[in-house]
């Protein structure tokens, strides 16, 4: 990665109050995204993958506390920005796409106006120019009859079309970074492919960085340059896709990888990861995966494994990573 990092995050912590409990959703996450890079954040529900990204943008809902040592995006130091300044960055410098295109669009506002609003909020274009640009954007994301469709309401579109509108909205101000939070999960399989193809095309055309949050290894490994695996609010493994595919090192990654059914899996014995992903209600002091880990030793239950470099570009948070590789391989 010779590229200059676009986004660098160091020691991000997010916790929520839920009733009397405190949920430790993100527990010390550090990573960076280079210009033009596509990073996949993979994990199961509750792993903190979505909260991590939303924390950076000030978009976490509920009673959340975010602590971060450093989060540099281009020339900005995100934690030091006022809400007003962060508003200027959201949508202008960083675009976001959410999972559920059914609920993420305002049902009583014409879709064209919603796309235009993104530009007008940042004085990115004059109303006249924004209108024309909206039509261009709608065409670019593959919505036929843009002129007529501009005036339609979200409920008049299919799920896939709504996700295209979300994408048009997110890229309207030509952001350098696009965050896509499970952008295809709610869609039919054939439509998933269309959306991924669209994102891939946009990425190549506009040379923007993308962080895609997904639970789907298939999506992540085919779409991304680099993958971060999260478990219980921590990054447990980070590697370029080629390395990731060739030599996964964390037991959770390996377990998850073999949990995926692919065509041709028939007849193969299943090897599920036992147990359930935990809900973290106190700051982790040991490896959260240890109770489910076939390689766990006493040290894992006592000492928190830090993310360490295994080989250049490949980081893992496991005390026994080297042994795991040889055992699993």
């Amino acid at each position, binding site marked *: 990665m010779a590229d200059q990092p676009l986004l660098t995050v160091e020691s991000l912590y997010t916790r929520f109050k839920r009733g009397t409990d405190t949920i430790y959703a993100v527990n010390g996450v550090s990573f960076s995204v280079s210009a033009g890079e596509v990073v996949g954040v993979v994990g199961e529900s509750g792993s903190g993958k979505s909260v991590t990204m939303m924390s950076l943008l000030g978009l976490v809902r509920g009673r959340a506390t975010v602590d971060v040592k450093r989060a540099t995006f281009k020339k900005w130091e995100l934690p030091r920005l006022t809400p007003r300044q962060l508003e200027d960055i959201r949508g202008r410098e960083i675009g976001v796409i959410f999972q559920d295109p059914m609920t993420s669009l305002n049902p009583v506002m014409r879709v064209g106006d919603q796309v235009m609003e993104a530009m007008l909020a940042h004085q990115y274009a004059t109303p006249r120019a924004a209108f024309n640009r909206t039509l261009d954007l709608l065409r670019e994301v593959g919505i036929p009859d843009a002129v007529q469709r501009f005036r339609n309401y979200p409920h008049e579109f299919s799920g896939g079309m709504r996700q295209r509108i979300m994408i048009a909205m997110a890229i309207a101000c030509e952001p350098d970074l696009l965050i896509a939070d499970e952008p295809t999960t709610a869609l039919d399989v054939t439509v998933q492919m*269309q959306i991924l193809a669209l994102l*891939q095309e946009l990425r190549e055309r506009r040379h923007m960085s993308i962080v895609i949050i997904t639970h789907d290894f298939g999506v992540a490994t085919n779409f991304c340059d680099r993958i971060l695996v999260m478990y219980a609010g921590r990054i447990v493994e980070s590697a370029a896709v080629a390395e990731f595919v060739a030599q996964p090192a964390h037991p959770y990654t390996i377990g998850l990888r073999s949990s995926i059914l692919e065509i041709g899996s028939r007849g193969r014995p299943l090897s599920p*990861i036992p147990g359930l992903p935990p809900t973290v209600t106190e700051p982790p002091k040991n490896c959260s995966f240890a109770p489910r880990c076939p390689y766990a030793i006493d040290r894992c239950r006592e000492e928190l494994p830090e993310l360490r470099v295994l080989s250049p570009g490949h980081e893992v948070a496991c005390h026994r990573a080297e042994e795991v590789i040889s055992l699993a391989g």
Partner: protein
Amino acid sequence: MPDSDAILTFDRVSKDFVVRRRVLHAVNQVSFSIPVGKTVGLVGESGSGKSTIGRLGIGLLPATAGQVVFKGQDITRLKPNALRPLRQSMQIIFQDPQASLSPRMTVGDAIEDAMNIHGMGTPQQRKRRVEELLERVGLPVSAADAYPFELSGGQLQRVGIARALSLNPELVVCDEPVSALDVSIQIQIIQLLQDLQREYHLSYLFISHNLAVVEYLSDVVVVLYLGQIVEQAPVEELFRRATHPYTRVLMDSILRVPQPGESARRFTVLKGEVPSPFSPPSGCPFHTRCPVAIDRCSKEVPELTLIGPDHWVKCHLAESAS
């Protein structure tokens, strides 16, 4: 295609719904059967009618036309009272276990109520059986006293399975039982379903939009598009020789993790989206999106044609090829 070994047979079954005075042909002339102790996988996208077929199969919905035959008995036109005793033998597992359980009933009560309805055993025997079932599906006995909102999705799906099993069914309709679950949990449930099938000699109608899951579990695969069967074959045959363009597209849509050294793939794109089932296209329903459609496809409805051992396809191009 009547089949004496079949536990359940669909014979030219159709189902129409009337939604705001418009008729929706949710299921159109569907025929297939589920052999005893086997699994038939039903694949399709939203609007393909796969869930409707599942409900028709166990008499939760009456068919508009055709026959649904369960163990030699046509259940299509049975009165609710006559159908009720049969319910013990055919059960269903839902996609969203949370929604299918009453929030006001503990897990134990929910499972027990199933036996209660059919007057099975004494209260003590039922309590015992609830505990056995919970253990069998991998839950601690203490879960009996929990309310549904206190359990996770995977745990609730186990409860749903235990409840279905409590009646000793012979046929279980699994309606997207793993779609809402986390990846690591999905495979636990799949394994559980597979183990239970062997143990209790169950027959499954397994509904899913995920071809890989269907391939893993099914003996026969039925591919649906807009309420019609477009391809149907034994599982090995289908995956060796998928013929219908839609089946092939579905197979391409499964993103597999590339092998080491293999480069990431481009995403193949099937144009358009599933048309509205209210106004299905003329001719072959798939022709509007088909990459290889010819003139004839928009005009003539293709016939279901046998192109291999038990391999049926509904496509003009396959007809001419065979």
